């Protein structure tokens, strides 16, 4: 029977994954490098900035051993610019995700959280995959490291509203077998929209099941009568099953 948990990740699980993102800290105390399972951490020498995983940064912040430097896209001006882009320039699509760093052979398979999108020298004009989680965590754990935490908080809330409204409006283009372009959508937003969007597609598929069945029967008949269906249709059949 069905699993008790809904499919997909829950918000705490996504926040847990987000804690692997690298952030920049300004240490207040010297700390030798640690050999952790996830790799060695750099030696922290005040006042040199270093990039360490978020969970480690939060720990040091809580012990008052370091300050966290918020990523540039969490600055009020960049958030306001992104918000303006979302509301005025691209009213149906999400703002584009940060550009991937160029790789030597052109086949870059690295994805967040293994890309340094949230360190202090990341791009300021794009929201990374974990923007919502990271922003909320930093605002909660290190509000004193922001210049204007209240304004950042307000802009984050506005951005979230705008983007969730877009996600909901995307239902219009949904189809039983169709795709849905969600470039630039964040991890937490996927979690929030998954149950609803999946439900809509399931419902549409249920309604359209008889038509789908007829189409398949017709194609099979055509094939048996000697017409050769295009290979394209064959692929479709495989997908729909």
């Amino acid at each position, binding site marked *: 029977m069905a699993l008790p948990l809904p499919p997909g990740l829950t918000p705490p699980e996504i*926040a847990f994954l987000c804690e692997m993102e690298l952030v920049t800290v300004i240490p207040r105390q010297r700390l030798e490098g640690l050999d952790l399972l996830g790799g060695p951490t750099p030696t922290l020498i005040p006042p040199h900035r270093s990039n360490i995983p978020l969970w480690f940064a939060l720990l040091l912040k809580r012990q008052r051993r370091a300050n966290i430097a918020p990523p540039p896209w969490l600055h009020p001006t960049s958030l306001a610019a992104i918000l303006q882009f979302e509301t005025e320039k691209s009213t149906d699509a999400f703002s584009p995700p940060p550009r991937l760093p160029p790789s030597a052979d052109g086949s870059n398979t690295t994805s967040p959280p293994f890309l340094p999108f949230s360190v202090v020298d990341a791009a300021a004009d794009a929201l990374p995959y974990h923007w919502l989680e990271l922003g909320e965590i930093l605002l909660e754990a290190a509000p004193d490291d922001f210049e204007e935490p209240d304004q950042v908080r307000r802009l984050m809330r506005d951005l979230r509203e705008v983007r969730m409204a877009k996600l*909901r*409006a995307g239902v219009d283009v949904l189809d039983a077998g169709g795709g849905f372009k969600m470039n630039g959508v964040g991890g937490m937003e996927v979690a*929030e929209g998954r*149950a609803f969007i999946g439900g809509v597609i399931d419902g*549409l598929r249920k309604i359209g099941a008889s038509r789908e069945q007829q189409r398949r029967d017709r194609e099979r008949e055509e094939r048996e009568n000697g017409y050769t269906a295009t290979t394209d249709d064959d692929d479709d059949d495989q997908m729909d099953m």
Partner: protein
Amino acid sequence: MGSYYDIDAILTDAQKVPCTFELTVPGLGYIDGNIGGDMKQGSKVELPLWLGEMLAISQNLSTSSLVTLDLPSALSPRVLNALKADSRTVDLRALAPYFYNLGARILELYEEEEMVEVLSEAFKLRAAVIADQAHNPRGALGDGADFLRGLDENERQLFRAAHDSAKSVRSWIAEMTKK
């Protein structure tokens, strides 16, 4: 189709559809409230979908089937026209608690290209409103109450899903702030 234990599928099958008996059946009059009498040929009875379907598609010794299945009133042209005009004002729950499931089952028996279109469009349009209502904290109490009361069972699940996922994100943020 759904699992054997799927309550929604069972309840869908229990919805009544109008059937017309093509043969006179002795002793079956009790279905129509005529205890002890015969079921006359041509009499119209409301039968559960599972029974009506079985009787309609079963080909017994004679060539004609026992009953013919008519379109349930919930899927009549009048309702489809109303859905085409403005699907948001139709009270689907009053028509059939499992409106879309009933539609899907009927579509298995009838070939109605247009009905698929109308139902899909209505479902999509209403889903957008459902999402807005689910994210609106006053939705269930304010002006959306009438609309929400008219949701069919599928749409209610959709509403719950949208509402729950928004709530879980909100509660994650709230829990983090508490610590």
